[in-house]
């Protein structure tokens, strides 16, 4: 069974993240890039499925040059190879354009399953998996807390507010995962060394079948009009508990009419 895992490089949440004054897109120079956290769970799930059912795991990344760090991370966890779509024409693409571009790039790869994280930690739109399924015309098995493959069928537990839905589809399909699904492995030293020799197929937008008239900031379906630092919250009252901390909060809540 061949699996493609989508990997995105995002700015590290622990650093200060900014938009660029020049074009209101993400300022990638302002903070360190890291692999999107949920993508590690997607890689882990793909590796576990490969261990059970055989086949190959291919990483697909679209992004700027520095995204190679995240590709290396994915390969050092155990993925077999990578496709890296890297083209200035893609700069500023929004979530739907990204889904379109990834769908086109997937057209150049053979796969049974596409696995991705349910959202990225930077834009957090949570729509790429669904939009990708729409573009590909494939079943959408998203927000999976559990994935089982049986012959040509795949079954997931889709997380809901009340618990989960069991959802079934025939492959090929698009699966997105939540962090509950597994515990991502740490790359071993051996795998890190091997990863350096694994093939990374770098493609331009044209190589990947992407129409550059449909991607990039100039063709975006959405536009960030302006941005500013959020106004700071007014400083609150902080007291040390001297045996009456609970009562003092109750007073505050009474004053605010919550009690």
């Amino acid at each position, binding site marked *: 069974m061949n699996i493609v895992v989508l990997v995105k490089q995002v700015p590290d*949440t622990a650093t*200060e*993240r*900014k*938009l660029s004054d020049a074009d209101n897109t993400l300022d990638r120079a302002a903070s360190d890039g890291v692999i999107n*956290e949920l993508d590690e769970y997607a890689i882990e799930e793909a590796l576990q499925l490969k261990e059970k059912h055989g086949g190959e795991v291919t990483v697909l990344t679209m992004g700027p040059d520095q995204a190679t760090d995240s590709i290396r991370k994915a390969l050092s966890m155990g993925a077999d190879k990578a496709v890296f779509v890297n083209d200035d024409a893609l700069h500023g693409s*929004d*979530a*739907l354009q990204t*889904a379109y571009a990834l769908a086109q790039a997937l057209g150049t790869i053979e796969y049974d399953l596409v696995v991705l994280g*349910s959202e990225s*930690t930077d834009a*957090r*739109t*949570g*729509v790429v*998996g*669904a*939009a990708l399924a*729409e*573009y590909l015309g*494939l079943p*959408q*098995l*998203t927000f999976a807390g559990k994935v089982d493959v049986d012959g040509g069928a795949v079954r997931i537990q*889709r*997380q*809901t*507010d*009340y*618990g*989960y*839905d069991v*959802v*079934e589809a025939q492959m090929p*399909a698009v699966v997105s995962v*939540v962090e509950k699904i597994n515990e991502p492995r740490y790359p071993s030293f051996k795998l890190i060394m091997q990863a350096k020799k694994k093939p990374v197929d770098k493609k331009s937008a044209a190589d990947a079948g992407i129409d550059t008239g449909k991607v990039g900031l100039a063709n*975006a*379906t*959405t536009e960030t*009009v302006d941005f500013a*630092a959020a106004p700071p*919250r007014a400083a*609150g*009252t*902080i*007291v*040390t*508990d001297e045996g009456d*901390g*609970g*009562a003092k*909060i*109750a007073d*505050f*809540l*009474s004053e*605010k009419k*919550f*009690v």
Partner: protein
Amino acid sequence: MAEVLVLVDHVDGQVKKVTAELLTVARRIGEPAAVWVGDGAESGKAGLAEFGAEKVYVASSELNDYVVAPKAELLAKLAQEKSAAAILVSATPENKEVAGRAAVKLGSGVLTDVVDVTAEAVAEHSIFGGATIAHARVRTGVPVVAVRPNSIPAEPATGAAAEETVSVEVSDAAKGAKVVERVAQEKGDRPELTEAAVVVSGGRGVGSEDFTVVEQLADALGAAVGASRAAVDAGWYPNQFQVGQTGKTVSPNLYVALGISGAIQHRAGMQTSKNIVAVNKDPEAPIFELADYGVVGDLHTVAPQLTEEINKRK
């Protein structure tokens, strides 16, 4: 005035609060038309009329047998037939997906998790864990916008709520992912986390899987219970209650953080709460930078005292 489609969130015929919020926003842009999928429209209609819905489009519950795609087909079809000015949905994980697919079908754009929308459908986002406020708009086609629950106060207005049955032929492509079973896990009587006016969350400081101290305070306040990632990762509280970057985003009137340090990953899920109260042993905990009222102390003594005081004052 052009119609603004609002996808209704309902449970057993009861309209959720976020739908009233969406109808309020819809009135700024045009004429609100509610879109109801499944049974219960007959009983739920009154609740839509109270918030200005002029029309209620009702579609068969069969759409719910498959994941997301049929609802997106319905919204896209209605948007085209009615030349809608915008489509509004709540920013739940499922509805954001519906919004994304509908936008692809319409060749338009989608904005998710917005906290405000103007009459011109310009949306406000609170991004990077609440550190930045950004405004965005859809450049092509019908704007599809997913609004974060509890962000905009619902204001009543009278609407006709004229019912119209919509027949949709679910396409084969949309039947690819079939729901074969729905499993409800422990829920209890507490309000739903993202809808709740008050949320009480517990973190590492709770110290064990015994969340009683958190739950009792929540029940005294009529609140939902949340948990930090540290508490969920430790296996103390179920995953679906996690607040933060990889969990739920909440925006209640009151957020009480018990034993939560307030790392950026947690703040990303609760920073737009209107009032924040924190209890933590560590006076340096970043949660105190956000707190309107904070107590440096042991939650295991402060929270029970608070619960008792609230129950006394009721």
